[in-house]
């Protein structure tokens, strides 16, 4: 792998983590973003599970697309087959986590199956196929970058919300309302990254 290649991968990472962050810039995966960010520990657990699923799902959906759908001229089937791939990866992850780490399983609880309906996962897989000259390593990096971006935002936001929970917030803004406002402000801040690089 040459230096130029490395730079390209670094660019993909920076682009997906900061510039085109899936949560705050492309507004995908907002349900776990609001739902699981109440406590820092659950946010970290959710981030780990999502990172694993997102990376694996983007690799597998790339393989499905490139080696099954494209040769057979069936690109129009990509949405339904990606949903299938994601559902299987999530189900599989759930089984493995249940077996290997009961505590993590208890903490993640309902949110593990909810990754299936996390639009960020399907969004990453679909956007991935739209990009020109896709290779195996690039899709893996793309998925990983998206996952790191998601985790970064989720953990930062959970930290903020833990602080807000003890702050003196005016009554009408308490709870989800101040969470929405905070998310909006974070999104504004992330728009500052636009123009850093173009991919």
């Amino acid at each position, binding site marked *: 792998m040459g230096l130029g290649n490395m730079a390209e991968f670094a660019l993909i990472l920076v682009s997906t983590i900061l510039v085109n962050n899936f949560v705050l810039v492309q507004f995908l995966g907002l349900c776990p973003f609001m739902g699981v960010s109440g406590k820092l*520990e659950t946010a970290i657990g959710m981030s780990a599970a999502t990172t694993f699923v997102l990376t694996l799902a983007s690799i597998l959906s790339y393989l*499905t697309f490139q080696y*099954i*759908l494209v040769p*057979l*001229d*069936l690109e129009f*089937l990509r949405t*339904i*087959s990606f949903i*299938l*791939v994601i559902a*299987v990866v999530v*189900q*599989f992850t759930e*089984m*493995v986590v*249940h*077996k290997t780490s*009961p*505590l993590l399983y*208890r903490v993640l609880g309902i949110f593990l199956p909810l990754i299936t309906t996390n639009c960020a996962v399907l969004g990453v897989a679909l956007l991935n196929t739209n990009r020109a000259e896709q290779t195996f390593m690039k899709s893996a990096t793309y998925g990983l970058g998206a996952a790191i971006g998601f985790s970064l935002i989720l953990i930062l936001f959970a930290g903020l919300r833990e602080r807000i929970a003890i702050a003196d917030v005016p009554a009408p803004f308490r709870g989800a309302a101040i969470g929405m406002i905070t998310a909006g402000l974070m999104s504004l801040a992330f728009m500052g990254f636009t123009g850093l690089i173009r991919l």
Partner: protein
Amino acid sequence: MSMILTAVLVLLGLALIFGAILGYAAIRFKVEGDPIVDQINDVLPQTQCGQCGHPGCKPYAEGIANGEPINKCPPGGESTIQALADLLDVEVLPLDAEHGEEKPKMVAYIREAECIGCTKCIQACPVDAILGAAKQMHTVITDECTGCDLCVEPCPVDCIDMLPLPTTPQNWKWDFPLPGAAVIATDAQRGAA
């Protein structure tokens, strides 16, 4: 027409492959029971005294796994609560006085001269630590007794005393529950031997 056929076949094939993977994983990663319940059960003192409101330690472990407070176990006391808090990653709570106070380890003693052999205490004992038969004198197997005092209540002639168990080099142990520690006293000795 052939396009539709290929599409259907491809989806069918994908579904079959994924179904096979999941089916295999369901067998390979099968979970027997709920492991967290077993881990909690290992930390509880296994007196089976029912002071928490459950019929025994295992049901209380299931209760804790479903979100019940961890401070309902007087025989376990401070150290059990501490261990549960570490295991479940929750806050340490003071012992709930409603369910009783932490007492030194006790053992039941039957004043044998007064025993009428009614077997009521045998039926009450959750760990089968009382030996005897109808109209025969009963006695307590000290090693098996968990000191739960469930046998005191049913005795019609009040011949059972709860005596504090003196600490000797044989039964002294560090004051925190070890995970995977013995279920009852004799198991511990067997394990150590």
